[in-house]
Every structure is written in C-alpha cells, then in structure tokens.
C-alpha cells in the first residue's frame, strides 16, 4: 500500500527542534556530571540548556548539502587556477610571502580549532551547542585541508612552501605566537574556549583576518587564496553567530557568570589583538597592491563593529575590553614595528622580506600621518642606505620574548614610541617578562600556566632546537645554521631578501615565457 505523504513539510524552527533537542537524553548508567566532567569547574552556572538557540537553525542534512556545494565551487576554481598557470597572474611574487606566512601560521590553527571545537562539543551537556560545535569542528578541518590543498599548487614553483602547515608551527620562533595563542585556549575549559575562540577570535577579530586579507588576495590576482578564503569565511558567519549566542547565553543564565566572562573577554581580546599584529604587517607591507591599511581595517572592524557589539552587550553589564585605550595608540605603530623586526631577522624567517620602496613609503605616510614619517621612514631609509653600501643590517642577537604572547619585545610604551615596553613579574622567586600591561595582567592572573610556556629563544639557548645528534662542540659550529636546519628552512633559498631570491628570478622568467615563444 502506498504511503500517503500529504503532510506539510516541517518548517525551519520545527525541523531544528526535532533534530537537535529531540536527540538529547539524560544519562542513566552514569550520572550526568560524570559524563560531562568539565562542565562546572570554570565556575560558569547554567540552569537551562534548552534556552540555547542557534539563530541559523542549521541541521545536519542542510549542513552537508551546502558544504558540498561550497567544496564543488572551490575545487572548480582550484582546477582552473592550476590548469591556467594562475600563479603567473599575481601582481608580484613578493605577494607569495604573505601566503607562506598564512600557510605556516594560520592553517595549522584551523586544525587546532577543529580539535578544540570537537572537544567543546563533547564537553557541553546542552544539545544545541553540541550540534553547533560539531559543525564548526568539521568546518575547521575543511579549512585546514582546503588551505593546504590550494596552496600546494604554489609549492610546485616557489620556495618556502615545502614545510607546509605541520613542521614549522612547532618550531619556528615567530610561529610560536599563533601556536601558543591556540594552545592557551585549548588548555582552558570549554566555556573559556568558547569566549576565546568562538567569541573574541571569531566574532570580534576574524573579520580583520579574512575580509581585508582575502579582498587583498583578490586585488593581487591570487584566485586560489581568495576562493578558499571566502569559502572558509562563509562558515565564519555561522561561527560568529555561535560565538555571540554563546556569550549571551552564559550572561542570561546566571548573574554570577558576568565577572568570569568579562575577565575572559579582557584577556582574549588582548591575546587576539597581539596575534593579529602579523595580519597588520601583511596588509601594510606584504601586499604589493593594498586594499586598505591595517589602521583603516581596525577602525571599521574593531572600533565601529566592535563598538556596536559592546553597546549591545552593555545591557548584560559587559564593558568594552580594558585594552582598548592602548589599542587606539597601537594601531598606528604595530605593523611598522613588526615589519621592521622581520626585516632585521630575515635570515631566520621562512619567507623573504624587503624594504618598502618610495611609492610604498608615500602610501604609508598618507595612511599613517601621525607616525610613519616621524618614527619609521627614517629607520627604513637608514637601512636602505646601509644595504646600498653593501652593509645590509641583520640583527644577530636573539630577543627577549613576552612570557604570554611570545612576541619579541619590540613594541613601545603607549606614551613613548621610542621606548621599548616591558613589564616584570615575580613568581616563586623567578622573574618573568611580558610585553605590555595587558600581557602582564594575564600572566599575574594565572602564572602557574604561563611559566610553562615553550619560548623559542629560551629553547634555542638551551640547545633544544638543533637536529638530533648535533654536536655543538665541533670546530666552526654555527648555532643559527643548525636551528634553520631543524626548522627545515633552506638557508639562502627560503629566507633573506626578496631582492636576488630564486622566487624573484623564476617569477620574472616564467612570466616572460608565458607571453613569448622563446
């Protein structure tokens, strides 16, 4: 007998209710608090998980359908890019150094995010957030894979892509900055993870990473990066919504949650902003054709958009993160200070650096009228004169690192941009240094956590960053060369100046071949 199927299809809200709430149950073989042992130790009080709402009301069947469509679109573009020598369409091979930094510094974080959301989904007793975290966890591994896949095409032609997203993240000095950020979040409890990554990173800061940078990739002719970037970003809108829902949910559940949540917001806003220094540098110095300055992106996505967000959260008693005053000063400095650092340490970095040319310095002056000509142009000009004399400046001492964000002490005092900023704390009779009031506060709040930091400079000095079997007592031993070997960084090929590099020569030769027959 035929089944009658004349009943109206379920609406979005009903379908979501059936496919999330309907799939949860109270455990009986073991008590709920044993099944979900991480749900309470952070002090967050939840009385009714049913109050959790996913505003997109996405269910797994719809999720697979739209994700599959995204993948089909992405791979169509990647194939076209590879088949048509898309790599020769970029503005200038200098651009690829931003992509190398992305592959080695950001793609591994997508993988950690995948693990972190899987863990958060496992640890939340509520069904709504579990489903949302599950989807985000799958999104994040998709991002890691599509990024590695898309960028592998460049590895056929250019230096510095061979170590990919796995080897260097655990070794290279500047990559410990993004790595330690995610390690810090992942080693916290599930609620702090949600504020750290779900809210602060995804909602408040991810726009600064993906939107201007991907638009910049488009502007610089990098179809592959734009496509994976936007494909990943289409998931981010959902992640941001999850982050915002999560914070509202925690605040509505119990008034005692407010001070805990506020502390995490203060901490993770500052942690995230420090990590984004790398993005600021990419936007201001590494894109041959620039979309907007770091400062402009900061004003649109943090000051305006973040301002609207914090106005909205004010009704719960949430205040704008305390670091905002310092950030307003920093936005005119950090990208210049970061690029100047990489220029000095180009021999130890897995990408090429260069000095901005005259036209680029004029652009920087126009975008940073208060700071560039006064503090940074003279420095770049001096280095250019030295390089012209054959005395290219390399800094051969290893810098002190911040115990929290792990960035070398290169940032300046908020009230004096000519003075390096550092703070000192004492814990169990040992001194620890941090780069700012923000990082010092984080250290002082949980010193037992941060004293365990794996600081690359300390590790190099302790002899832990050489290939196995290295004998530092042999005659002519060069510690830096051994460190580079351990990084899988080929000295003279992957590092140093762009000017004179294999990438520069090959790009010029291949581009010539693409338009001529000889």
């Amino acid at each position, binding site marked *: 007998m035929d089944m009658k199927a004349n009943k109206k299809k379920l*609406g*979005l*809200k009903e379908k979501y209710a059936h496919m999330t709430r309907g799939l949860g149950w109270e455990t009986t073989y073991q008590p709920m608090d044993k099944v979900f042992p991480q749900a309470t130790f952070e002090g967050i009080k939840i009385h009714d998980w049913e109050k959790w709402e996913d*505003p*997109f*009301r*996405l269910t797994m069947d*719809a999720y697979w359908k*739209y994700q599959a*469509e*995204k993948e089909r*679109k992405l791979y169509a573009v990647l194939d076209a890019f590879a088949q048509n020598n898309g790599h020769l369409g970029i503005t200038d091979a200098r651009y690829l150094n931003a992509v190398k930094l992305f592959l080695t510094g950001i793609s591994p974080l997508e993988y950690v995010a995948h693990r972190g959301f899987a863990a958060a989904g496992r640890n939340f007793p509520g069904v709504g957030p579990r489903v949302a975290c599950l989807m985000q966890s799958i999104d994040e591994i998709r991002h890691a894979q599509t990024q590695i896949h898309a960028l592998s095409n460049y590895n056929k032609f250019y230096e510095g892509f061979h170590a990919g997203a796995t080897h260097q993240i655990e070794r290279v000095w500047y990559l410990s900055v993004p790595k330690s950020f995610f390690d810090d979040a992942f080693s916290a409890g599930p609620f702090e993870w949600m504020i750290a990554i779900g809210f602060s990173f995804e909602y408040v800061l*991810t*726009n600064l990473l*993906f*939107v201007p940078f*991907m*638009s*910049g990739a*488009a*502007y610089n002719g990098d179809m592959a990066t*734009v496509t994976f970037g*936007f494909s990943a*970003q*289409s998931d*981010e*809108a*959902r992640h*941001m*919504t999850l982050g*915002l829902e999560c914070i509202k949910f925690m605040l509505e559940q119990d008034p005692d949650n407010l001070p805990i949540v506020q502390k995490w917001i203060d901490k993770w806003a500052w942690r995230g902003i420090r990590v984004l220094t790398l993005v600021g540098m990419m936007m201001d110095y590494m894109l041959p054709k620039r*979309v907007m300055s770091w400062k402009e992106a900061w004003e649109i996505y943090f000051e*305006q*958009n973040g*301002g*609207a*967000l914090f*106005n*909205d959260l*004010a*009704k719960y008693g949430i205040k704008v993160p305390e670091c905002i005053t310092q950030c307003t000063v920093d936005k005119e400095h950090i990208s210049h200070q970061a690029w100047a650092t990489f220029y000095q340490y180009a021999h130890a970095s897995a990408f090429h650096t260069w000095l901005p040319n005259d036209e680029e310095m004029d652009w920087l002056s126009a975008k940073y009228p208060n700071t560039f000509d006064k503090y940074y142009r003279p420095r770049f000009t001096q280095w250019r004169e030295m390089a012209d004399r054959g005395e290219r400046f390399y800094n051969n001492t290893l810098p002190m690192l911040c115990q929290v964000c792990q960035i070398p002490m290169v940032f300046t005092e908020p009230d004096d941009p000519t003075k390096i900023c550092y703070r000192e704390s004492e814990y169990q009779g040992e001194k620890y240094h941090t780069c700012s009031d923000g990082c010092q506060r984080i250290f002082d709040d949980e010193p037992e956590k941060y004293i365990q930091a794996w600081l690359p400079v300390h590790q190099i000095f302790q002899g832990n960053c050489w290939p196995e079997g290295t004998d530092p007592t042999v005659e002519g031993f060069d510690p830096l060369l051994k460190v580079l070997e351990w990084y899988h960084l080929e000295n003279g090929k992957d590092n140093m100046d762009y000017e004179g590099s294999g990438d520069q020569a090959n790009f010029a030769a291949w581009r010539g071949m693409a338009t001529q027959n000889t």
Partner: protein
Amino acid sequence: MSTVFIAFQTNEETRPIIESILEDNPHAVLDEQPAMVKINAEGSLVIRRASIEERIGRDFDLQELQVNLITLSGNLDEDDDQLTLAWKN
C-alpha cells in the same frame, strides 16, 4: 544607533540577492570591494525570501545564502521567510 552589515561574494548568484536586499531596505548602503560586496545598514536589515524568489523565478531557501556569505554583524534571526540582523539598542 549601531550599524549592522552583511557581505557576500560578488557573483551571478548573489546579484539578485543584493538587489532584493537594497530594495527591501531603502536605508541600506552598498559598499563594493574587490571580489565582495558589503551592505551596511543603520539599526537593522532584513532579507526576504519572497523578494529573492521574484527576481530569480524559482523557489529559494534562505539557507542557500550560506554558500556565498562572507560575514555579518548584528543579532541574527532566521525562519523560513526572512533573515533579520539587528542591534537592539
């Protein structure tokens, strides 16, 4: 008053969606950037299924927006007929 926004990839699929949004939200402002369009609006923004269907001449599920979405800002609410972004302050 705070600004909400939504951004899409610039492509053939999003053209009628953007047109619908701009018509349904006269206060919205279009910001065209390389490879993407951002629509900014004071206070709130609504995306209506019916307006999109009228332009594309077929049924449209608002969850299809996910495919070309880049980012958004504001509190979101979605049902079968419309998606709303708003700051409630």
